[in-house]
Every structure is written in structure tokens, then in C-alpha cells.
């Protein structure tokens, strides 16, 4: 299988703090690749460096054959790589549905075309159908016309995932997509993600709730203190003594 995302020795320093230290990972096409590690070990920072939110201090990010190191976020979206945020960042002045629609493309975004509804309404309606389907998957379809600020914390989390799924990207990085979500819904979402994988999508998922997420993973990277400490299949990584020591403790048996 081809590598879709490759990081080469990514390092990110915040002043004296080395948040990410020479991390090289490979995300293969059509896989569910997981990134685990204790709080503050640099998972979110790594994703930020890959998606243009932050510029890495050192190292390269390759998407397919393209070097996307330091590209602005919206250009990385254009090549087919999006991410969701750990702390939901909804568009509070928009409805739930428009939050999702906003993550999609419509030619009516061009200001010269925008005043002429006829020119873009068909696209909008097609997008709406897709958006409603995604909202149904994350159980927000009944809330579609509500302002997003009326949602609860777990629902905002789901909206964040929905925005990621709606983008039509080939690679979707989800930063703790099921944090705070009840186990049944979490399973449902991950099942959906697994289905999307079959349709050709690739996922890079940061997740603390290993017990729920690991069964869906094809490959796991484990980090600690900014470094990569282990990688392999779920059973290899979760039984790696280094991982057990820093992170899992007694949790391993549960898997």
C-alpha cells in the first residue's frame, strides 16, 4: 500500500520546550492509523504541524508525492487533507447544517457568482443531502436547523467530526473524535469511519480511549514527551513494555 502521509523528522519547539521531537510517521492509504500517548506528549502539535496550523521548526511533511511543509491550512485542504479539532471550534453564528455545508465546496463561494442563486443552488442542494447523511451518522440530524451554540459539549464534538467527514478529503485527521461521547455512539461513529475507509478514505486518529478505538485501528504510533516510542499493529504496540510503562498501565488487559 502507498503512503499517503509521511512526516520526516518533524520537530516543533515552543521557546525552550520541544513539543515534538524528530517524529517520523507514515500513514498508509486506506488505513485507520492511530496516534496515542499521555497528555501533553505532542499529538495535537504534530497534527497542527501537518495541517499548516503551525509551521514545524524542522522536518518535512509529504502528502502523496507533494511536499506540503509549511503550506497554509486552506491549501492543504485543497490537496485533500483535513483535520478536526480536539476542542471543538464551531461557527457559532451558523446553523448546525451550515457548519457542515461550510466545510464543503460550492462554486457560489465566489463573490461574483454568489448573488445569483440559480447558479449555485443545485450544488447547494446536493451538498445538503450529503451533509444530512453525515449529520444522521453522528446523530445530529434532528438538530440541523439549530444554531450551533445551542449544542452540548458531546454534540459539538460530533459536529466537529461531521465537518471533517464532509470535506471530501482523502485523509482526515481526527483529534480525539470520541472524547466525552458515550460508548455506544462512539462505536457507531467508528464503525462509520471503518466503512468510509473501504470507500477509499484514510484516517489518522488521535484518541485517548484506546479500549474503544484500538479495535478499529490498523496501525498505531505511540508518543511520549514529544518522541515516538513505539509503532506497529494494535497488539504489538499495546503490549510493548515501553508503552505500558508510560501510558497504559493496567489498561492493557482490557484490550
Amino acid at each position: 500500500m502507498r503512503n499517503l502521509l509521511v512526516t520526516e523528522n518533524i520537530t516543533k519547539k515552543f521557546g525552550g520546550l520541544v513539543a515534538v521531537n524528530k517524529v517520523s510517521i507514515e500513514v498508509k492509504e486506506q488505513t485507520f492509523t492511530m496516534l496515542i500517548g499521555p497528555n501533553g506528549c505532542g499529538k495535537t502539535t504534530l497534527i497542527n504541524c501537518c495541517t499548516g496550523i503551525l509551521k514545524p521548526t524542522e522536518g518535512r511533511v509529504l502528502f502523496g508525492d507533494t511536499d506540503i511543509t509549511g503550506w497554509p491550512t486552506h491549501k492543504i485542504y485543497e490537496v485533500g487533507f483535513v483535520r478536526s479539532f480536539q476542542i471543538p471550534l464551531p461557527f457559532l453564528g451558523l446553523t448546525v447544517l451550515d457548519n457542515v455545508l461550510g466545510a464543503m465546496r460550492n462554486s457560489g463561494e465566489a463573490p461574483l457568482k454568489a448573488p445569483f442563486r440559480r447558479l449555485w443552488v443545485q450544488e447547494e442542494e446536493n451538498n445538503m443531502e450529503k451533509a444530512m447523511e453525515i449529520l444522521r451518522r453522528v446523530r445530529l440530524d434532528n438538530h440541523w436547523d439549530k444554531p450551533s451554540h445551542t449544542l452540548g459539549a458531546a454534540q459539538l464534538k460530533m459536529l466537529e467530526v461531521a465537518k471533517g467527514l464532509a470535506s471530501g478529503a482523502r485523509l482526515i485527521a481526527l483529534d480525539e473524535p470520541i472524547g466525552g461521547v458515550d460508548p455506544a455512539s462512539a462505536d457507531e461513529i467508528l464503525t462509520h469511519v471503518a466503512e468510509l475507509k473501504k470507500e477509499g478514505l484514510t484516517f489518522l486518529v488521535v484518541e485517548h480511549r484506546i479500549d474503544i478505538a484500538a479495535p478499529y485501528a490498523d496501525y498505531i504510533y505511540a508518543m511520549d514527551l514529544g518522541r515516538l516510542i513505539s509503532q506497529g499493529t494494535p497488539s504489538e504496540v499495546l503490549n510493548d513494555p515501553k508503552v505500558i510503562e508510560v501510558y497504559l498501565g493496567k489498561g492493557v488487559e482490557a484490550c
Partner: protein
Amino acid sequence: MITEQSRNSKNILGLFLKGEVITTVAILVVLTYFLVSRGLPMVLTIIIDFAVFAIVTMSLNLETGFTGIPQFGRVLAVIAGAFAVGAIPGRIMAASMGLPWGLKYAKDSIHYQISPELTQVLANSWVFSLLFLIFCVTIAAASGAGIGWLTSRPAIRLKEAYLGISLLAFGDFFMWVGHNWEPLVGGSTAVYVPDPFRIFGGGRFQAVVIVIFLVAMLVYAYLNRLTSSPFGRSLKMIRDNEVSAAAAGKDITRIRTQSLVIGSMLAGVAGGLYVIYTGTVTAMGYSRLVWTFWPWAFMMLGGIGSTTGVLLGVMVLTIMRTMITVYRFQLFGFLMAWGINPLWLEYTLMGAVIIGVILFLPHGLVPEKVQPMLPAGRVKKLFSGGMAAKPR
């Protein structure tokens, strides 16, 4: 389930049942009665002020209310439009007629020779008058858009307060350029502009008011359509959260620039139309107070992010302002006893309005509604056609 119809009527009812709106409408009615009773010229003055400031305030609302750009330099694009109309079309005419068009043209207010001659030409031809008007509006729009684009270059990447201050500084800068550089628009003296409405003779005032009012309504319709679209959604996304908007594929710099250019273009048109209406330009007439801070007050009172609200805000405050200008000495003369000169009352009013709105009506008279970008009816139809009805 509530039907579309009953839902709409409930909304409208709800709007009018709101205390603020009732009070506003009541005040409006009383004030309007007073002013209307003073005759047609008063009514026309109110309409013209309303129309010009409506365009300016709606343009501000596009940039600030929809896009989140702290536009404290609204005056700049208004100046660009005003100066362009003051400096260019008349000169082109003068040059083509073999009249002086250099510094002598800019200083014509002293001799008053060139512009009467130009106006005479316009007054004899409907075609010339119309072409002249269209050219003025076009050039005002282009100058507004151009200056908007120019200021966006260094400024657009700045964060809130820095961007706001930069825009404010640009605005003042151009006013002083106009004031001190005589060849542009006469410096400290006024420059006269040929009058494309002279052809209406005694009906000149009515005609100019009607035309400018119609332009304002066109701008309203245009902005409503522009913002109820995927473009409008992108604007609000950027306003609500830049990082998240970028992650959703929006090019923040480009979209903010587009908003700034469109807003400035419209403000330029307002500046140009105002010049055509008054027939003159004086650089010092374009102060930050009147063309930046008043529109802010109008917008805040009406409701930031609500195009309709903004119209209401402009209407209310324009009427109150006119009221004060007309009656300040009759009604507020007693203030003299306390050492307050009623001459400044309208400025005090704007300040008071801003403070009052912040304290009591933070979302304005007509708060922005969170609603689907397509009209609700259309969305509903789409979903009742199978999707929403589908069982999970």
C-alpha cells in the same frame, strides 16, 4: 409541525411584540410627524441622508458584521469615491471642451467660471447627463474598490485591534492629503462638480433624492443576495473562527480582501453620490466622526450582522439627528443655561446611542438571526421530499 406560513407570521409578530421595536417605531412616528409637517424639503433631506448613510452603513456591516473586520476607516473609501467624482469627470469634460483643467479647475470655487459652463452643457442633453451620472458612479465605485484593495495589502493579515487602527489611520491620512494638496479637490476650498441633475430644472432636488434612494435600495437587495449564499457563509465562518474556517478550506486573506473591496466599492459609490447631490467636495467634510463613527453607531443600534436591522438603525438615527438639527435651539435652548451649546447635540446623541446600545441592546434592535443560508422554505421542501422524513 408548524407550517412555513404560521412560522413566518409568528416571527413577524414576535418582532413587533418586542418592546424595543415598538418604542422605536413610536418615536419614529412622532418625530416623522413633526418633520413632515415642516414640508417637502425636510422630508427629502431625511430621505437623502438616510439613503447615503444606509449605503455606507450596509457596506460597513458587510465588512464588520459579516466578516469580522474592525473597519474603523470607513471614511477612507467614502473619500475615495467623493474625491474621484470631484476630481475626474468634470476635468475630463473641461479638457475636452478646451477649458482649464489643472489647478485653475480645482480652484474654480473662487472664480466660479468653469463648472457653470460644464453644467450648462449637461443641462441641455439627457444623454450627456445620464452618461455623466453613470460615469461618476462607476468611477466612484472603482476608486472605492481600488483604495479598499490597496489598504488591504499591508493590513489584512493584522489581527483585530491592529487592523482597526491601521484602517483608521489610512482614513485620516487621505482626508489630510485632500485638504493640503490643492490640485486634487481644491484643498481647503471646495471644488464644484458639474450637475447631471440640472436638466430636471425645478425638480432637481426631488430627482436626485429619488435616484439616490433607488441606488440605496439596489445596494440593499444586492447585499441581501450576496450574503445569503455560500460566499456569505464563508464570511461568517471567518468572523466566527478563523482557524476553523481555514481548516474548512477557506482562504482567509483572500475572502477578507474580497469583503473589504466590495464594502469599499459600495462606500465609494455613497461618497460619489453625496458629492453629486451637494454639487461640491471639500476635503474637510469627510471626517472620521461623520463617515466612520456615525455608521458604527447606526450599525450597532440596528444590529450588527443584520442588513435589515442596519436600515432601521440608519432610519431612526437619521430622523433623530435631523430633528435635533432643526429644533435644537427651540427645544434644547434651555441647555445654554447650563453651559451646554445645543449646537453639538447631535454629536452627543451619537455617543449616547453607542453607550446605550452597548449597555442595554448589545445585539441591536434587530439581532442577527441564525438561519439556513437558503430560505427556510426551500430547505424544508428539500427535506420533506424524503430526506428528513426517512426513518433512522
